[in-house]
Each structure stands twice: as structure tokens, then as C-alpha cells.
């Protein structure tokens, strides 16, 4: 055919038409060439310069005003810029910050703080008791979109007799006052005090805050990075760093890649699946610590789950040690209650129930259950149905759920697994409100302080999906209620410890939830960094970090 004259069409190397140089090798070559041209070898991925500390977050901070923020990422940034009256150091001890000393009145209703002298805000203005009083006014202002202000509602009034003294008057003794109010950030009155509530909600302060902390925010590009420089007026030790940069990279693997490329000084919370890889890296140190966050199985008491024996049996039937070893790959520690073991409030006499399916079966048999059709347990003609639920995007929780399901089925519990969206899990049409037994797997960030009334008090059993209150397992025990109320009123530390010990005993005995484990985190630090250490309570003070 005339078409084929002069052209064979064979072979990928033939350039048979100008303008379409399309064979493979050239395409790949072009890509590589392009890459080479765009950056000379080795000049990219440079390690941070001396004096610059670079870390990475997975979310962008939404609001740097502590009383208007919603996301954890925001507190991870504003912690560098704000101080409170007292603070907990990285070993769990209270130390003075903006207040040098404090006293509590005999009746527990008046707290007096003596403020540190000579403190200035990062814009140079002097810090006084008026700022402390204003912080309370902001936190209780009904026109401002205040998010977290627990404890401030207990204050009936504040006196500021001198610029260096503050007296809080409480309606009644309130033990958590120390961590909730004295440990809360102080915000400047001279910048916010004259603004109307709506103005505060939309203020530029929320992007570029001014605080008394060791660093100040100079640049915030949302979704990209936050740059902080030392606060020249800082009252404490002069920060050794010249610059602190927080980069925002949502993907976990990408953050690890950043660390591997040497671009980070600190990677908080290395994902467990890449720990081995990080540990083998030269120039990086892995710091392991227990996080005050625990994983649990919430047992919603509607039908059979109202019987404590059923809950205890399920506790025996849950292979917690195996989950820690095989699913969490050792990056978890056993949990017997909701107080973190490395903290001062844990009841050290309690130990988690061991995995004992035989014991579980015995307990259920004694509770009146007998094997029926399909090999499942029945009582009064009804099958023991306990569906398991968790959030589909939390891959670890999905794995844990499958392990627990298999173990429960072996003792005769009929269980179906559900991995759904958070809205479906906790929403009105979810398993918590349908009147049936259900087991939900999720995590709870208890923190290092013992306040847990919203979890176990019967007054906090939520009526529906939009009422707050975390006692969705519907645990109701009058003794527990009394203890929780007493704990809030008991300012004496020793007595408070005894109360929380008893509370934890009840948690262990009554199994309102099955405590699975405490999360172990690992922070990866570049070996060029000095002064950084981390524990359950937090890090060493940022002003002591250095990259010499």
C-alpha cells in the first residue's frame, strides 16, 4: 500500500515525526534532566542552620488565642508564647511561673497569688494583676466564642489590691482550681480589654498573639509554617535559640521523610510502623515516653452489659498483652485505671486482669448464660450480642477491634464489627443511642491531672448526642458519685489522693470501660539538639533548647 512507502513504523527509537519525540527512554531522561536542572545535587534538604530549631505538626493551628482555639495543633504552638501563674515542669513538679508564691485560705475559697515583678509582654508593655483579672473576664465573656475555659466558672470575683497581687474568690472550695485556672495562659488586657466581643472573635491577635512566654510569633502562614523568634522581654532564662520554626505537613510518612532528609530538629510522635527505621538512623536520637492517653473499650450498659459480671468476663476475655505486643508492637503499656502510671495519681496496687478465657466462660456460666444455637451464649432466650464499633480512619483501632472480636467470639459472644465515620459513631443515629448493648473502641486524653468526673459521674450520662458529658457507658454508682464530688472539694492533697485511689478501685472492680493500654510515644530528635527531653508531663522548657 502506498502508505507504507518509506516508513516501517518499527522500533521505538525511530523518530518518525518531528514534533513528537515520544519514545520511552527520552521521556524518562527528560524527567531526570528536569529534576537535575531544577536543583544542583545536595543543595536541597539542607539541615537547619545553627540556632534554628525546626519541628513539624500534622495539623494547622486554627487560632492562637488560647481561649478561642479548638485544635490540639494550636496549643502546640501557643505554648511557646504564653505563661500561666504556675506550671508543671517536665518531671511533674509544680513550679512558679508568673506567680512566685500562692496561698489558699482555710476554707478553700480564696486563692492569693503574688506576681513576679518586672515581667513584660513581648511588645514591651508591663504585666500586672489587671491582666490576670482580664483573663478571667475574657474566659467568661458570653459574647466571645470561648472554647476551653474549665474552672473559670467557679470564680465569683477577683480582687487586685496591688499590681503585684491577685486574689481569686470561689463560690466553694474547688481542688482542680490549681491546674485549671492557675495553670491557664494569661492574656494581655492592654491589647484585648478595650475590644468588643465580636472584635475579639475576629481579631488579628488570634493569628499574631502577644504573650509573656519565651518566644513570640513573627510569621504564621496557615497550612505552611509558623516562625517564632525569642521574646526580648522574657522574664526567665534567655532563650538560646535564634529561631524556632514549626512546619505543617499533614502526612505522617512525609514527616518521617523530612526527618530522614535531615530537615528537622525534632519530630514529635514517630509513627510506630517506622520506629525501627528511625532508630537505625545516624544523627537521630529516639526518646521514648508514656503519653497520658489511653485506649479503651466503652461498654454501653443497656441490656446484658448492665450486669457487672458480664463486663468483668469481657475484661478477662480481652487479650490486652497480645494487643500491646503484636498490634501496638510494644509501643504501649498496660492500663489498670484511668490515671497514668508514671504520674502521681495512679493507684499502684491495681493490675489489669490477665487474659483468661476460661475464667471468662466460668463467670458467664455462673451469671446464667448457657451455650445455644451457633455456639453462642444465651440467657432467658436472648443471645449475648455485643457489637464492636470504631472509627474507620483510625487504622490501629480497626486492627484492635478485629483482635478483640476474634477473642470474644471464642468465648461465645456474638459480635459484629463496624468501622464507621466519627459522625456515625458518636452521632444520634449511632450505637450509643439505640437502646442496645454496644462496645466502642477509642482513645481518651486524660492528661496528667486526675479530673475525671465527666467520665464516671451519673449526672454526666448524656441525654442525646448533642449534650456533653462523657459517661455514655451509662455507669451509675452512688458511691462513685459521692467520691467524685468529694474529690473536687478536697483541697488537701493527701486526702485527695486517698479519694482517687478508691475511685480507681471502683473503676477496676466495676469495669465501666475496659482499659486497653496507655500509648507510648517516641520523639525523634536530631543529635545536634541540646537540652530537649520529654516525659509524660511534657518537655523541658523551650528556652533551654539549643542547636549549637
Amino acid at each position: 500500500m502506498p502508505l507504507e512507502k518509506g516508513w516501517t513504523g518499527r522500533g521505538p527509537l525511530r523518530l518518525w515525526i518531528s514534533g513528537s519525540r515520544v519514545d520511552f527512554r527520552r521521556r524518562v531522561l527528560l524527567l531526570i534532566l528536569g529534576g537535575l536542572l531544577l536543583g544542583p545535587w545536595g543543595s536541597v534538604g539542607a539541615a537547619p542552620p545553627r540556632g534554628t530549631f525546626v519541628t513539624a505538626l500534622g495539623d494547622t493551628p486554627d487560632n492562637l488565642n488560647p481561649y478561642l482555639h479548638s485544635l490540639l495543633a494550636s496549643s502546640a504552638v501557643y505554648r511557646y508564647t504564653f505563661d500561666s501563674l504556675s506550671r508543671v515542669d517536665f518531671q511533674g513538679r509544680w513550679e512558679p511561673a508568673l506567680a512566685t508564691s500562692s496561698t489558699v485560705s482555710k476554707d478553700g475559697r480564696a486563692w492569693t497569688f503574688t506576681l513576679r515583678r518586672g515581667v513584660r509582654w513581648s511588645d514591651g508593655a508591663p504585666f500586672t494583676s489587671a491582666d490576670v483579672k482580664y483573663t478571667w473576664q475574657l474566659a467568661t465573656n458570653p459574647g466571645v466564642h470561648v472554647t476551653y475555659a474549665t474552672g473559670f466558672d467557679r470564680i465569683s470575683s477577683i480582687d487586685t489590691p496591688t499590681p503585684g497581687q491577685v486574689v481569686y474568690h470561689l463560690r466553694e472550695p474547688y481542688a482542680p482550681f490549681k491546674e485549671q485556672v492557675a495553670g491557664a495562659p494569661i492574656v494581655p488586657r492592654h491589647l484585648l480589654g478595650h475590644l468588643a466581643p465580636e472584635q475579639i472573635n475576629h481579631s488579628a491577635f488570634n493569628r499574631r498573639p502577644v504573650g509573656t512566654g519565651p518566644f513570640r510569633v513573627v510569621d504564621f502562614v496557615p497550612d505552611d509554617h509558623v516562625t517564632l523568634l525569642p521574646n526580648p522581654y522574657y522574664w526567665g532564662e534567655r532563650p538560646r535559640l535564634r529561631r524556632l520554626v514549626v512546619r505543617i505537613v499533614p502526612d505522617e510518612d512525609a514527616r518521617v521523610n523530612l526527618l530522614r532528609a535531615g530537615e528537622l530538629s525534632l519530630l514529635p510522635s514517630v509513627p510506630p510502623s517506622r520506629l525501627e527505621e528511625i532508630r537505625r538512623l545516624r544523627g537521630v536520637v529516639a526518646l521514648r515516653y508514656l503519653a497520658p492517653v489511653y485506649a479503651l473499650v466503652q461498654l454501653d450498659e443497656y441490656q446484658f452489659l448492665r450486669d457487672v459480671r458480664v463486663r468483668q468476663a469481657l475484661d478477662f476475655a480481652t487479650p490486652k498483652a497480645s494487643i500491646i505486643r503484636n498490634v501496638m508492637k510494644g509501643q504501649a503499656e498496660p492500663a489498670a485505671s484511668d490515671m497514668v502510671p508514671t504520674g502521681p495519681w495512679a493507684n499502684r496496687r491495681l493490675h489489669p486482669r490477665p487474659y483468661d478465657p476460661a475464667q471468662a466462660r466460668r463467670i458467664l456460666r455462673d451469671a446464667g448464660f448457657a451455650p445455644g444455637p451457633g455456639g453462642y451464649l444465651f440467657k432467658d432466650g436472648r443471645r449475648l450480642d455485643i457489637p464492636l464499633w470504631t472509627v474507620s480512619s483510625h487504622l490501629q483501632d480497626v486492627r484492635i477491634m478485629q483482635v478483640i472480636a476474634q477473642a470474644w467470639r471464642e468465648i461465645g459472644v456474638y459480635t459484629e464489627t463496624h468501622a464507621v465515620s466519627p459522625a456515625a459513631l458518636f452521632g444520634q443515629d449511632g450505637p450509643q443511642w439505640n437502646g442496645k448493648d454496644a462496645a466502642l473502641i477509642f482513645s481518651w486524653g486524660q492528661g496528667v491531672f486526675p479530673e475525671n468526673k465527666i467520665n464516671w459521674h451519673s449526672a454526666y450520662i448524656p441525654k442525646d448526642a448533642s449534650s456533653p458529658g462523657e459517661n455514655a457507658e451509662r455507669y451509675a454508682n452512688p458511691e462513685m458519685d459521692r467520691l467524685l464530688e468529694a474529690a473536687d472539694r478536697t483541697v488537701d492533697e493527701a486526702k485527695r489522693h486517698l479519694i482517687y485511689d478508691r475511685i480507681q478501685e471502683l473503676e477496676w472492680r466495676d469495669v465501666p470501660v475496659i482499659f486497653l493500654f496507655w500509648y507510648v510515644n517516641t520523639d525523634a530528635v536530631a543529635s545536634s539538639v541540646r537540652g530537649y527531653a520529654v516525659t509524660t508531663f511534657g518537655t523541658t522548657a523551650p528556652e533551654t533548647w539549643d542547636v549549637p
Partner: protein
Amino acid sequence: MGRALTEGRRVGGRYLAGRLLQSGLLLLCVSAVSYGIMNMAPGGPLAVYLHNPQVTPTQVELLRHQLGLDLPWYVRYVAWLGGLLRGQWGYSYYTGQPVLAMIGERLPATLALMGASFLIAVGVAFPVGLYAATHRYQWTDHLVSLGSFFVWAMPTFWLGIVLQLVLAVQLRLLPVAGMHDIGDTSLADLLRHLALPALVLGLGSMASWSRYVRASVLEVLGEDYVRTALAKGMGWRRVLARHVLRNAFLPVVTLMGLELPALFSGAVITESIFGWPGMGRLFLAALNNRDYPLQMAGLMISAALLITSNVATDLVYAALDPRIRYG
């Protein structure tokens, strides 16, 4: 195009006016339906506070009232619509910033990324598709097919992480993530940072577009006028350049039209892996947090873009193909 003049206008002014009216009505419809559906979906802007150890019940109630969430959704919708028409698109529930400002901040980064990936995809898809079509059924064609489908089938996160590991971490050719090095605002730096994410995105699109180009070119290669042109003695090169390319454009134009709104809405996974501050991440966060004002703003803009690009595509289509008449 000469025929158009003799046959009278094929795309009349009436048609255009009709489309514009339809577009306006459609936008209104979209806004109402979306607002309704959004509010019917379980969860809500306050969900993030409900499952948090530090929140107080009174605080949540107060927030609910402050954000107007205790009013029925149609009341809120009317208020929102009124504000929209007056140019006030509202403030984000979380940051308190005006939503248009938040969108505007991310627009340049998004356009850069999506534009670059678009160019890469087009630039690679056309030659690849053309090559595959003209070497139909040879082993090179099959290799290209296999390669294209593999790139298309593998999830974006896989492609992104693997390329990031190889090119950025192990070979150190390109930066790992972010838009620029600390303190560096040069264009060269931006391009270096743009290369990887644009490549990842572009490769994904390229795979499917090259298939369409191939199919389209094959169709054209079967046309009578091609045979006629060759019989008349025109060389292959001229045939391709004159006839084939222009007519193969058509279905591909539809495809490109489909992709245009993505220039605005960005690509979440790629942005997350490479820390690129684009729209995709912004709207995903808005979606997850149920930040209604931000969500609605994004929705309106992308819906408007979608509708506009459809109208534009139809018009371009009519311009390119003399056989199409509307009405």
C-alpha cells in the same frame, strides 16, 4: 468555520442567555440543597468539643447559641444567602477569619500546583497517546498501556510517598515538602519545591488522558478524509499536523473541561504529603470540622467554576466541530 457564516449562527445569543439563566438558577439550587444536606448530616461544628475532656456543658451551649446553631437551618440559610449577595461571605467558626480571606491566601499556591500538574499531564499525555495510537498493537503500545494503567491504579498516596522517598530522601534531588526553604523567596526555590507534587499529580492524570488521546486519535485515523489526504500524496507529517491533531482534540477538550474546576479545588492527598498549603486541605478541614461558612464559600466557588467551565466547554466544542448545532 467558513460554513458557520453561511449557515447562520450556530451558537446564538439566545442560547447563551439561556445558559446563563440556567447557571444562575442552578447555583441557587446547589446552594440550597447543599446547605440543607450539610445540616442534615450527623455531627456538626460543635462535635469536636463534645468529645473533649476540657469542655464544659455550659460552654458548648453558649457556643451553639453564639454561632446561631440553635436556629433552624432554613432561617440560617436565608441569612447566609442575604449576606452572600451583599458580599459578606461570613467568618470561619474556628479561626474567626473572613472566609474569603482564607481562600484568597491559598489561591496562588493552589493555582501554581494545579497549573503545573495540568501542564505536565497535557505535555506528556499528548505525545504518549499519539505514539501509542500510531504504534497500535505493537509491544511498545502495550507497554505504555500497562505503565499508564499501573500509575493510574496505584493510590496517590503510594505514588507520592515512594517518589518522595526516592527522589527527595535517598537521591536528594528535590526538597521533601513545603513551598519554599526557610527565608528563601526566589522563583528557583519555588520551582524546586513545586516539581515533586506537580509530578505526582500530573502522572496520575496523564495516565488516563493518554488513553483518551489514543482512542480519539485512532478514531480520527479511520476517517475518510485521512484516507483521501494520504491518497492525494500528503505525507504523514502533514496529515497528522493538519487533520488528525485538530480533530482528535474534540473529546479530549471535554475531558480537560471536566478537570478545570480542579484548578481551584486542589488535591488533598498530594497537598498533605508534600505540605503544600492549598485549597484541598482547607476544604477537607472545613468538611471534617463542619465549618459551615468556609464550606459553603468553597462550594459556591467551585460550583460556579464547574458550571462556567461546562458552558465554556460546550462553546469551544461547537467552535471546533462544524457539525455541532445547539438548540
